[in-house]
């Protein structure tokens, strides 16, 4: 079999494993959809201030007011991509490293690119599905508009997905064993999720500046832009995608240098 055929078989096997594993499927899909339902209901009819800050009387200064769910649906879609790629990969790879599965694969002629295409390809499929699901639920239940700019939306999901897959592999370097994976992973990104304004916009330039260091913020921005939550945009924002790309390239270099195939002996 050629490497391309093997890579396809890997994607298929990874997809099977993913859907048969209730925990993986739940964390990838359950959280973003659940929060969409909760917050979508609570804040239905409210407005969100995009690209601006709230003034003394609560008015939106320097930005645009849009219906809350117009903002919230793409934000939850972005979170879905992060769970499907970053969280999912960090967890499964740490478990496989601990159980010796990675070590076994290294002893076979399976090429590294085919293996990586398998896990990343499968994660991207999950990411596309969760984004579609979020858009559908948001549209049907909360009247959020369909994504306005299709091509930028798909491109952002794919680029963001690959970058968060790379970062998911990278974070395994910091995960001592599979038991610690949920703690390390959640600690590494959930606070950033909040200060990046995934749930509501807020007025604190220090926290916002911190958020802007991380790819989570820029990915959310790219998704908001592509979904049309930012009224005056063509759907593309070069800066968002560039920051993501830089995180991906640097992350890949660090991962290639420090990735561990075997658990540390204790």
């Amino acid at each position, binding site marked *: 079999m050629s490497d391309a055929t*093997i890579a396809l078989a890997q994607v298929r*096997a990874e997809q099977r494993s993913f859907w048969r594993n209730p925990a993986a499927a739940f964390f990838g899909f359950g959280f973003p959809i659940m929060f969409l339902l909760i917050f979508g209901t609570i804040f239905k009819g409210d407005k969100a201030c995009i690209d601006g800050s709230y003034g003394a009387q609560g008015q939106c200064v320097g930005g645009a007011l849009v219906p809350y769910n117009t903002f919230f649906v793409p934000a939850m879609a972005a979170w879905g991509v992060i769970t499907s790629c970053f969280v999912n990969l960090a967890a499964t790879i740490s478990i496989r490293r601990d159980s*010796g599965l990675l070590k076994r694969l290294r002893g076979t002629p399976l090429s590294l690119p085919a293996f990586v295409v398998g896990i990343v390809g499968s994660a991207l499929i999950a990411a596309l599905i969760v984004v579609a699901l979020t858009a559908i639920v948001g549209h049907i239940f909360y009247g959020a508009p369909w994504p306005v700019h299709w091509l930028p939306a798909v491109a952002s999901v794919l680029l963001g997905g690959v970058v968060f897959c790379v970062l998911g592999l990278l974070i395994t370097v910091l995960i001592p064993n599979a038991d610690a994976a949920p703690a390390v992973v959640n600690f590494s990104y959930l606070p950033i999720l909040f200060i990046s304004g995934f749930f509501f916009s807020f007025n604190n330039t220090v926290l916002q500046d911190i958020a802007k260091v991380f790819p989570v913020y820029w990915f959310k921005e790219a998704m908001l832009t592509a979904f049309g939550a930012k009224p005056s945009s063509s759907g593309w924002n070069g800066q968002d995608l560039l920051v993501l790309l830089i995180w991906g390239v640097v992350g890949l270099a660090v991962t290639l240098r420090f990735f561990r195939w075997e658990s540390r002996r204790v």
Partner: protein
Amino acid sequence: MAAIVVEELRKSYGSLHAVRGVSFSVEPGEVFGLLGPNGAGKTTIVEILEGYRHRDAGRVEVLGADPATAGRDLRRRVGMVLQECAVEPYLTVREVVDLHRGYYPKPLPTDDVVELVGLEEKAGVRVKKLSGGQQRRLDLALALIGDPELVFLDEPTTGFDPSARRNAWEIVRGMRKLGKTILLTTHYMDEAQNLTDRVCVVSAGEVVRIGTPGSLRAERAETRIQFIRPDGVTVPKVGEVVPGGEDGLIAMITETPTKALHELTEWAVARGIELQRLEVTQPSLEDVYLELTRDE
């Protein structure tokens, strides 16, 4: 040309010298046993041969290549059963074997291999649901699916019940008949005795002895004679008396068993005594092994 050559192999982990100048070679078609207590360096040696670890010094050749640099070409010709190596738990036995089948240029048919390891009834079952012994047999199937020339079996039957072990032995014998070269590590001397053509005993990172199981056993010339001590008589001392192991059992070892046995039975027959549970045994490989690897 030898299938495996190891010359003056050395490997340290920090201040721990795990392998200290080990040399041996394995011929094509041979079943070669690597024996030694825990921490003797067996797994380090095997993992260097498998390409997982890098040696500090010495020469290593596996099927004519250096495993440290050979890469995929070598891995296509080698099968491995590692000590701890999980399989994707949510795939079925057949799915996993099929997936691995795709990695090799000239694999065996999936059904044949699944049947060879006795998992045909579990082919549609998810790996997660297999027992420990069944998972180990799946390991064996994955090592064989690529039709390898050389197979590494690192403690392949640890945790097996006696009948599962016998089955695994049959599989190994079958592989040997197919002309595969096999390097096997084990704790079980009966396994080494039954399966291997030659064994290499390592202890504290050094080779203590290399030879056929028979030649190792022959190193201890003494034969053991034991029987239940008859009541009310003094038994003639026909050899060196050693602990009998259980109450009422008397044991002697001798280098001249024919003479000793003759004296003993002549004495007993003359008095009309039947020696209960009379046994004459050669030292087992285990006896020799324990002596060779005793803590220095």
